[in-house]
């Protein structure tokens, strides 16, 4: 099976829904609570704690890191819970979303409008994914605990292209 390599600098329009891929580069973890704050900040005209233009967001909240570990187990969470917030962030320049499960028609429209992509990791493969993370730094909302925003660096995170920039979608 051919494995497409994706980085923060990749031309996303080359990706095709259904392709097996690996992502190496920077992504920010954010779940529902962080998304709510992102959108509240945007509504209030305040800056977001991450540079959203061109960013990759990984929908995940890890277990705590044990002594000597970079991060705990860190698989994807259900993307649908971010569907109410995602179109707003896509319109602000978000380019890559990584999660698991289906997306809403509104998100798919926003993906097409902004030439972004939705990639899926394997739900429940948290120990395997942990082994592909080389850096982790908490950068915002520490009061949210596991839902805090972290800047993480992946080395070959296994993924599938679920929705490509043209809106083709493999998840029914």
């Amino acid at each position, binding site marked *: 099976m051919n494995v497409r390599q994706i980085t923060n600098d990749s031309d996303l329009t080359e990706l095709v829904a259904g392709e097996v891929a690996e992502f190496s580069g920077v992504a920010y973890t954010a779940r529902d609570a962080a998304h709510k704050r992102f959108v509240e900040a945007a509504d209030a005209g305040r800056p977001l704690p991450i540079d959203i233009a061109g960013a990759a967001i990984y929908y995940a909240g890890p277990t705590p890191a044990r002594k000597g570990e970079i991060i705990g187990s860190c698989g994807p969470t259900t993307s649908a819970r971010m569907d109410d917030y995602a179109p707003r962030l896509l319109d602000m320049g978000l380019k890559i979303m990584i999660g698991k499960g289906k997306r809403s028609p509104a998100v798919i429209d926003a993906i097409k409008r902004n030439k972004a992509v939705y990639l899926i990791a394997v739900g429940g*493969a*948290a120990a395997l994914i942990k082994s592909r993370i080389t850096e982790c730094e908490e950068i915002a909302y520490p009061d949210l605990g596991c839902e805090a925003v972290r800047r993480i660096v992946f080395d070959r995170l296994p993924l599938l292209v679920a929705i490509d920039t043209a809106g083709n979608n493999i998840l029914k």
Partner: protein
Amino acid sequence: MYRCELIADRLASAVDSALKKIDTRVVDMLCAARREETDERAAWALDQIIENARIAENGNCYPCQDTGVAMLFVRIGTDAQTDGDLTAALTEGVRRGYREARKSIADPLTRLNTGDNTPPVIYYDVTGGNGLEVTFLAKGAGSENMGGVRMLTPSKGRKGIIDAVVGIVRDAGANPCPPILLGVGVGGTMDKACLLSKLALIRECGRPSADPDVALLESEILESVNALGIGAQGLGGNHTALACAVETFPTHIGMLPVAVTIQCHSVRHAHIDFAEDNA
């Protein structure tokens, strides 16, 4: 006399171990599914799920970051005595068992995290004798969010039950991390059917009901669900569900409640018989 301190200690230890290991019967089912799988993308997902289970077991780490809400199913005899507050002891056991795990419990309205993964959801079943047994189930949100209950009319019958389960699984699609396991509760009242669906899940994974008619229903549901073609992670193939367990209870002449609890492939549970300690 059961000592609360020992109950908390032993529960904490069982919870900590259970959270770091997928039920070996489920791993065997996943391996069997992988051998049969012909869909390339589903095989890609199953390979990772199986490798993940191996990494977690070898590394003594959590196979899934969602270490769940702690559910405790308690069977206590009317003659059993404790030296303190049993609910408090069980809660303390959960608190300690989750010390290294993710703290996933929040107030439903303020969304403030309780910080220690308590309170657990506890169901007490009072029996005869002086025994005390607890079954722990870690229930993740991704699969729990996709469950459902349908209040059917009796005329819908057996086919209606199967259709209701299939409908719930179809709507869940890729979200609950398939391959899944299904716990189905049929009968009782709305709430009783929901509890039965959980009790079905804590039966030994893959073991059919002792009632041949219910066992047949289990296999009919499993076959219908796997005909949906959702497959591992929603990527296609024949392995949407690995097993289906049904528990029944008599219901009202005017009712046919059907509840479905979906369990993801990361099945983490433990059973503790405290009577062994009660020397």
